[in-house]
């Protein structure tokens, strides 16, 4: 039996100042998300997404864009990964 291969991606998010908590609360409701990290640096939030197709990834980024307080997203699709 062949199992469908998953597409994984990092979505790097910048928010408007003062909206982080509200944006996070909305993001924790999203489906197809493996992890959500609040970071200190050029970005504010890093999401690791796990979807079945590029179309699902597009839907997810669309949902993120529609969250009030999100300024910009930058999606990096994972081609190969090594984990401990």
């Amino acid at each position: 039996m062949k199992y469908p291969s998953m597409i994984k991606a990092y979505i790097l998010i910048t928010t408007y100042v003062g909206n982080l908590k509200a944006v996070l609360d909305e993001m924790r409701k999203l489906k197809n998300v493996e992890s959500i990290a609040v970071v200190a640096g050029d970005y504010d939030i890093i999401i690791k997404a796990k979807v079945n197709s590029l179309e699902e990834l597009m839907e997810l980024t669309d949902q993120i864009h529609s969250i009030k307080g999100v300024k910009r997203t930058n999606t990096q699709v994972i081609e190969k990964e090594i984990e401990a």
Partner: protein
Amino acid sequence: MRIRKKYLFYVLAILSSLIGAAVTVIDTYISIKYEFNPWSLCLAIFIAGLVITFFLSLILSIPFGGKSIGARIDPSFKRLRMLKKEELKYHLLAGMGNAVATVGYFLIISIYQEPSTILAFFEVVILYLLMMESIAEKNAPTMAEVQASVIVTFGAIMASFSFEGEINLLGLLIVFLVLNPAWVVFSIYQRKLKIMKINGCYNDAINIRFWNLVFTTFFTAILVYFIDKENFFGAIDILKYWHLFFISMGITFFSYVLYIRALGLGKASVTQAVKAFTIIFAIPFTILASNFVPITFYESIPQLILKIMGIILVVMGVISFALTEVRAYIFIKAKTGYPINELLNNVWGVKGITSVAVVAGRYDLIAKARMRTLGKGYERIIRTLEKVKGIEWFEWETILKEWEEV
């Protein structure tokens, strides 16, 4: 469910300790009240345990509300299933480890009148696991984890030590050369089984526990037969008390399922260290059981003081485990024309890096790092990355808080 993985890990490990503490007191009650031969008891417990685990796993396989009942305990569980070929090797080793550790434990029980003095040194198993992880795992323990492990180990020894028993070379040899190494094998291979993917999903703790019992019972039967044939058949005789063993092993089942789930989320050494909470949780159960059988949780005032000091150390050690980790993302841009696979392996080789992904987008690689402090991150990771060939530039993003799907 998306929660902070760290919290779930501690909840599972502590809950497992709480249930484990109840079992410890039930087992003590059974051995004091019925005075079974330890070897027959050892085998009878596993035979009865296998039967009750089988029935519990079947009940947990019943679908309810779109998923199995057992999925509420471990979301990866669907139903009791046959063993997969790729699991067999690990189950053989984990089963053998559990059987040898059990035989080591019962050997001490059968030799010593007051075994808790020698058995206190079983807690050193935390340091064995730590050593194994330092040698064999990419995600090696940090200095703070080593400190916390030593604090918990010494605390647990102090809290379970008895002045009544004796310490001699034979007992120490059994603990340090049989019991502890066997338990390490058992823990490490159960963890390997939990993080293994079966049919594209993570393995579940309920099937792991059931199949581990199958192999453990098999190996224990062989060992008990060679140690004492008479007591081997004696096990069948004492199985008439099956209801007692069903209670003990039925509760043990839930303790182990939670323990195996915790193993899948954290390191074996940290899971074992948190399991030292069993000593603390055993106190109220011991007080309760003292109404029925002659047991106390302390023998003298000096032992009580030692116990309290040990408990404080265990609690402090476990708390410091939870507070000693910094994680970060590193975004890396490769030099044009540099082979990306080579760069991937170069970054993966840096100590502290727990994952690296080749990505398509603004960056070429995204790595995740784990360290004790940001200072160590600079010393160990940033300075090393600056020397890695093929990196044009990199950016560092410290993780302040993280939620993960579990």
